[in-house]
């Protein structure tokens, strides 16, 4: 059982964070011409769409957005209970592009590792960068995010829940604690 401990972000805070991330992506890459966004399923896809909208409003053209399912690339695939796969949807060429992976929460880094492996099966991007809404710490691999909405040091007993309007909830980030 997890009980709510704190409301970390509301709709306005999420909007501001994603808007800042979009600006940073443009600044860091000196424009968005070669940038493509790929959301990691399930949490990152809607966030990637929103960041793409902000980039379009600044640069005039929208970056390509894709969705990546990492089920088959998980390092715990053969030891944990079966996971149903969902659809990967990348309808564009990623060769020589700057691929910005988008996820909701960065935790152990294992999902990011799996996502990078998956990306290399689609081509050879010139760069891979990582954008996350929340970085909660506790990395188990040498991975860091290039763009962070909010750094939130957590304990291992805690859990972060990101809810989005696209999934039928209100936009919110809630910190829960195991009781």
């Amino acid at each position, binding site marked *: 059982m997890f009980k709510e401990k704190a409301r970390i972000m509301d709709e306005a805070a999420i909007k501001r964070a994603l808007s800042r991330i979009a600006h940073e992506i443009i600044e860091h890459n000196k424009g968005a011409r070669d940038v493509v966004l790929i959301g990691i399923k399930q949490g990152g896809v809607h966030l990637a769409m929103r960041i793409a909208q902000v980039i379009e409003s600044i640069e005039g053209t929208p970056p390509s957005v894709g969705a990546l*399912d990492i*089920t*088959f*690339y998980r390092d*715990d*695939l*053969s*030891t*944990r*209970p*079966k*996971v*149903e*796969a*969902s*659809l*990967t*949807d990348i309808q564009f060429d990623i060769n020589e592009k700057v691929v910005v992976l988008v996820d909701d929460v960065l935790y152990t880094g294992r999902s990011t590792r799996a996502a990078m*492996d*998956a990306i290399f*099966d*689609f*081509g050879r991007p010139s760069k891979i960068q990582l954008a996350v809404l929340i970085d909660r710490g506790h990395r188990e691999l040498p991975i860091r995010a290039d763009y962070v909405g909010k750094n939130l040091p957590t304990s291992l007993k805690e859990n972060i829940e990101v809810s989005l309007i696209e999934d039928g909830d209100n936009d919110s980030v809630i910190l829960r604690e195991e009781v």
Partner: protein
Amino acid sequence: MELKSKDLLGIKELSKEEIALILDQTKSFKEISTRTIKKVPALRGRTIINLFLEPSTRTRTSFELAAKRLSADVVNISGTTSAVAKGESLKDTAKTLEAMNADLVIIRHSASGAPHFLAKLLRCGVVNAGDGTHEHPTQALLDLFTINEKFNRLEGVKVAIIGDIAHSRVARSNILALNKMGASVILVGPPTLIPPEIEEMGCEISYDLDSVLPEADVVYALRIQLERQKESLFPSLREYTTLFGMNKRRAELLRKDSLIMHPGPMNRGIEITAEVADLPQSVVTNQVENGVAVRMALLYLLIGGGEVV
């Protein structure tokens, strides 16, 4: 959700929910075959044995490609090149394969029930890739996926299956699968090729193809097994073609959005004319493409992932 059994022996053993799960997962696997690098590490380190004791090109190749695209190791054993040709019994062959730590055995056999026999003997999973005149479950699954892909539903879809129902495991598996998913089946063919009491499986019977076609969403032409001709079950191939062959005139009786299907290999000019096989309504090549994806989903659901907790 997961499959309940370690084996896929027939459509009969699957629930509606399990069929829906396999069809749903197939979508994710179909995408993999469209990539430049058509391979994911989902079954890395697993060993699959293709034990094909009856001739087959497309089913064996399809299973082999499915396994390889999931990074499993595959060994092919055929009847003529194995110790089976030296008279080894199926039981001994199976025990030998298990001792080599296979995770899954895919079997095609001319005897109905051979996969069931194996499944009882072996701790590893067994998949039926066609047994005698009994079942060919993965063919039915890929056919259902193909129909659903075009109509976005199976409930209420009207499927006419034409030809040699009596000797067809493809027909049996399809009748079972379509019924479970709420589609309706009408069988069309010469009376000698329609087994008695098959209506009890839940299908209608007709001997007049022309009257069935305007109502059908799917026309499924079965292969006429030419070796059956010797048994004199129908007077001549020419008569069969005249009465039950899918030709251009019959294809025009179909609605524009109806599908023409065939499990292959086709006898062009007998159960289907070359002209009809190449019509836009014909989804024969889609069936082959979807076959790999359905088998990938099935292999993943059977031996992918860890232990059930």
